[in-house]
C-alpha cells in the first residue's frame, strides 16, 4: 500500500490517481501510524516552504519520515515535499526544514519566475527513478530549489541557474518537478519508484 501524506497541502487527488496506475492500493492519510507502516510514502507539497513545514509540524510527521528512512522504507517527496527534506528554506525568511539532507533551498536566479513548465534533466550517478526516461521532460512549478548534491544519484535542471531537480538516497527519493503531472514520462518514473516496494 502506498500512503500519500495529507498535511493540508493542496489537491492530492491527482497524486492518488497517478500512483494508483502502478496497481498498488493508494490511501490519502494523515494517520501517522498508517504513514509509518505503508510500503511506500509520498510526501506532496504545494505553496510556501514555511506553510508546508507548519503542516508537517502540526501532525508531527517529520519523525515518521526520519523513522522510515532509518528503517529503509521508501519515501518520495514531491515539489515542496522535496524542499522540506532539506535543513533550511530561505523562502520569506529563514525556516527550518525536516533536515534529513543538509543544505539550503533558495530562490532561483532567473528572469522569469516561477519556473513553470516542462524541462529536461541531466542525470549524475546510477539512477533507478529515471530508468528509460533519462531524455524526457517533466513538469515544474516552483521559484525555489536546492542547488547542492545529495544522495547517490541526482538529476539537474537549468532555469537561470542549475538546480537539483531530483535525488535518490537509499530509501529516500525526491523530485522538484511533479511526476503526477508529467504525462507518461511521469507515470513511468512513478512506476520505477514503486518497483522497489
Amino acid at each position: 500500500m502506498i500512503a500519500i501524506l495529507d498535511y493540508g497541502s493542496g489537491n492530492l487527488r491527482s497524486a492518488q490517481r497517478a500512483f494508483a496506475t502502478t496497481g498498488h492500493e493508494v490511501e490519502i492519510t494523515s494517520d501517522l501510524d498508517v504513514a509509518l507502516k505503508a510500503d511506500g510514502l509520498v510526501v506532496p507539497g504545494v505553496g510556501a516552504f514555511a506553510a508546508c513545514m507548519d503542516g508537517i509540524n502540526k501532525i508531527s510527521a517529520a519523525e515518521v519520515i526520519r523513522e522510515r528512512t532509518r528503517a529503509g522504507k521508501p519515501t518520495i517527496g514531491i515539489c515542496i515535499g522535496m524542499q522540506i527534506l532539506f535543513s533550511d528554506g530561505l523562502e520569506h525568511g529563514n525556516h527550518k526544514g525536516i533536515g534529513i539532507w543538509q543544505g539550503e533551498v533558495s530562490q532561483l536566479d532567473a528572469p522569469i519566475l516561477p519556473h513553470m513548465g516542462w524541462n529536461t534533466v541531466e542525470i549524475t550517478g546510477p539512477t533507478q527513478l529515471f530508468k528509460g526516461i533519462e531524455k524526457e521532460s517533466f513538469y515544474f512549478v516552483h521559484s525555489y530549489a536546492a542547488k547542492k548534491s545529495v544522495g547517490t544519484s541526482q538529476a539537474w535542471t537549468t532555469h537561470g541557474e542549475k538546480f537539483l531537480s531530483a535525488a535518490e538516497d537509499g530509501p529516500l527519493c525526491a523530485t522538484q518537478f511533479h511526476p503526477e503531472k508529467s504525462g507518461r514520462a511521469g507515470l513511468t518514473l512513478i512506476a520505477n519508484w514503486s518497483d522497489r516496494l
Partner: protein
Amino acid sequence: MTLSVRIIACLDVTDGRVVKGVNFTDLVDAGDPVEMASLYGSEGVDELTFLDISASSAGRDTTLDVVRRTAEQVFIPLTVGGGIRSVEDVNQLLRAGADKVSINTAALKRPELISEIVDRFGSQVLVLSVDARRARTESGFEVTTHGGRESSGVDAIEWVEKACALGVGEILLNSMDADGTRAGYDIGMISAVRSVSKVPLIASGGAGALSDFAAALDAGADALLAASVFHFGIHRIGDVKSYLSAAGYSIRTLNNS
C-alpha cells in the same frame, strides 16, 4: 536544455460541452471536454485550460464533474477559469483536480481576492486572465469584461503591474480584438505586457498560421494558447511543435516512454 515553450489547448465549456465561437458569440459545439482533453494529452499538448462559460450554477456543478473526470485520466496540468469569485470557489476546483485557476472579472472588482487566493494556496495556482483590447487608455490597451463585450475602464498594463504586485503566478493575456479571427496574436500587446511582468506570460487570441505562434514567442510569450485552430483540426498539436522545433525553439517532444 532550457524550459520548453508550452502549447496550451483551451476548451470553452458550458453545461459539460466544449464550445468555441468567433469573438465569444455564435457558439459552435465542438465536442466532449474529457475526450478532447484526453486526445490533446496523447497528442502532446503541454497544458489544458477549461474556461467555464456556463451561466447557471447547475452548469458550474457540471464543470466540477468534468474537471474531476479529466483529472482522473489526463496527467498533465489543468487550469480552470470562468466565474471564480471566492477563495471557496478556488478550493472546490483544486479539490476536484484542477492544478491552477484563472480569475478575471472578480479580481477587477475586488483586487484583494488575488492576495486572498495566493495566501491560502500559493502564487503557483493563480493565473490572472486579462481580456484586453486596443483602446484610448494610457498604454493603448484596456481591460474588458463579459467576454469582451464591456469596457472596464482599467488600463491593461497598469492592471498587470498591480496584479503582479499582489502575487499572481502567471498571466493569460487574451486579445479580444484578435480572438477567434485566426489573424495572428496581438504582438504589440504581448510586448507591452512582457515589459512590465516577470511572471510567465501566456499569449491567447488570434492563433491562425503556424508563424503566428513563433511571432508571439519572439514578442516575449512563454506559452501559447489556442482553441479553434486545434478544435477544428486546422493544426494538430504536433504540427505546431514540429514547426517551432524546426525554427529553433525548445519544445517538449513525446518519446516512446
